């Protein structure tokens, strides 16, 4: 471990420390004085950014984990294999932070255990809770080989590799359920939600948009960590990830507009209201710009533009989840919700912890090993190929 470099203070480290300290203060404040004092939520508007951002976006951005696993290990397109580890790590950290966000948001988090023993199959929240618990476990198992490799626990490693395919399949199924179920959460409010976002196939929209965004996250991580560690970047590989992401964006937007047309809601696109403008903003940032960029070879194969495209995809996705969970509900609640400083600072803390943890882990564990260009392949990699080809 590179302990000496941890204690060297840099600008970004100072920012991270301040954000985490502020977040911890907010956590103490929230539990000391209750949700009313810490948030801008009220009886008319019971869900804010801890649900809309920390949970909906956190889970969505983790979608790269199951998407890359499916492409690399189930569809056996081996060239994507090097991307699987960073994607799984992001997903794992993402899910842990989602749980942390949930603990802040729940009024009685000490009753969380009840979700395991008291079952209500009619509740989407019940499905969500189980998916979070099971998929976090699966993600840990998917990431475990990296830890085992680091500490050279070869026997355990062999066992893990034998069960890795069923575990990945389980992970893909759980993700499919979980990504879509976050959309299903809102099926129950047909009369409260703004028509441009409400749809009986909201779970399908959530699933499709998560795949495109998960892939954009893979590009984002590879680019930022390549910058941070001066690693080489397999641009050709990331360009093809961008290509798949683009296809998913086009499919997702097509399904949305066909759905709007079938539900006879296209007229809402012409109504002048803040909801309509937010819808167009989401469409512009998350679909129009990235599809324009990713559809052209010169942008897709440029390091900088590929990264910028990924940022747009992610930004549009965040806006979509915020629109579904907040914008679309403000009208009927007659309350213009804006998060409090405590809500914002806990959210920023979680994002910061995620980034710091990702960096520390990638620095000390063989996460990006397989992505480095020109570096010798590790022994472990040879070991895996031998086992897989048995």
């Amino acid at each position, binding site marked *: 471990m590179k302990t000496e470099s941890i204690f060297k203070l840099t600008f970004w480290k100072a920012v991270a420390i301040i954000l985490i300290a502020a977040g911890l203060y907010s956590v103490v404040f929230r*539990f*000391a*004085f*209750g*949700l*009313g*004092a810490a948030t801008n*939520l*009220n*009886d*008319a508007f*019971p*869900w804010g950014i801890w649900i809309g951002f920390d949970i909906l976006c956190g889970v969505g951005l983790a979608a790269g984990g199951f998407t890359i696993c*499916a492409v690399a*290990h*189930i*569809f*056996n*397109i*081996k060239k994507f294999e090097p991307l699987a580890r960073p994607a799984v790590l992001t997903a794992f950290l993402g899910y842990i932070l989602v749980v942390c966000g949930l603990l802040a*948001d*729940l*009024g*009685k*988090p000490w*009753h*969380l255990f*009840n*979700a395991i023993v*008291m*079952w*209500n*199959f*009619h*509740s*989407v*929240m*019940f*499905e*969500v*809770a189980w998916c979070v618990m099971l998929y976090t476990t699966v993600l840990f198992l998917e990431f475990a080989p990296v830890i085992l490799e680091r500490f050279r626990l070869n026997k355990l490693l062999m066992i893990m590799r034998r069960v890795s*395919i069923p575990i990945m*399949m389980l992970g*893909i*199924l759980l993700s*499919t*359920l979980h990504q879509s179920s976050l959309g*299903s*959460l809102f*099926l*129950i*409010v*047909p*009369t*409260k939600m703004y028509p441009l976002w409400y749809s*009986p196939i909201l*779970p399908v929209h959530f699933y499709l948009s998560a795949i495109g965004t998960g892939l954009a996250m893979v590009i984002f991580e590879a680019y930022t960590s390549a910058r941070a560690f001066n690693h080489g970047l397999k641009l050709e590989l990331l360009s093809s990830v961008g290509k798949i992401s683009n296809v998913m964006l086009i499919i997702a937007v097509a399904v949305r507009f066909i759905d709007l047309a079938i539900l006879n809601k296209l007229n809402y696109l012409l109504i002048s209201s803040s909801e309509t403008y937010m819808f167009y903003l989401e469409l512009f940032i998350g679909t129009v710009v990235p599809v324009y960029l990713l559809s052209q070879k010169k942008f897709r194969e440029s390091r900088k533009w590929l990264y910028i495209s990924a940022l747009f995809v992610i930004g549009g996705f965040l806006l979509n989840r915020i629109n579904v969970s907040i914008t679309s509900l403000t009208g009927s609640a007659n309350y213009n919700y804006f998060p409090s400083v405590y809500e914002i600072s806990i959210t920023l803390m979680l994002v910061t912890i995620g980034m710091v943890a990702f960096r520390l882990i990638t620095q000390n564990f063989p996460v990006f090993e397989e992505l480095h260009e020109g570096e010798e392949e590790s022994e472990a990699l040879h070991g895996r190929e031998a086992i897989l*080809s048995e």
Partner: protein
Amino acid sequence: MVKQKGILYDSTMCVGCGECYNACKAQNKLAKTNSDPLRDHLSAETYTVVEQYDDKYTRKMCMHCQSPTCASVCPVGAIVKTELGPVTYDPNKCLGCRYCMQACPHRIPRYEWSSRDPRIRKCIMCYDRVKNGQPTACSEACPTGATLFGDLDDLKAEAKRRLKENPDTYYQHIYGLEEAGGSNVLILASVPFEKLGFAANLPKEALPNYTGRVLEKLPGVVGVGAAFLTGMYWLTDRKNKIAKEKQQEGKK
């Protein structure tokens, strides 16, 4: 089969005296929140209110739906529809996720926002009294008979009789008979219900069906998904192996 209980509130008979409000506060040991019952609103300490719209009064309270949205969304089953009709809440199960508040089409459940151990708060139709064969505190306190407690079937018949016998007095609709799948609280009024602050856009279908339609497909999704993934893995793995064998044969 137990006969379901219910409440019929006829707003045309209401004089806005606030006796139901006071009786409810006393029965449920709720803190005083306003000196004038007509100027209060539902809160963690107020299960029912009397609202004034010009010269008309109306009560707001939990509708005790036949198929309660709040109970269906609760991940731990802290909210339940009892056999007698009242929809009750158990704070010892509650996680505090507030999905019931988000989901309720009538916007009824309230939260103890300032508490460190917050509960959901709403009218539970005086379940302890009803269980013992007593009427609710509000209906017992009502001096004009605007709030009636009784068997739900009788109340439905009574509401229909009133609409039919006095067509000029009533707006011809029983609020709660069909809204969101129907409820155990029925309301009559002389004007359209949106003029009294009621949600007028509720579907007749119970809202839990909206998620039910998706949830019932999940076992299929999992089955087909598992088969697809296994099939894909088998196919692509085999393809890779054959390609490898051919490569090796070529070398020989």
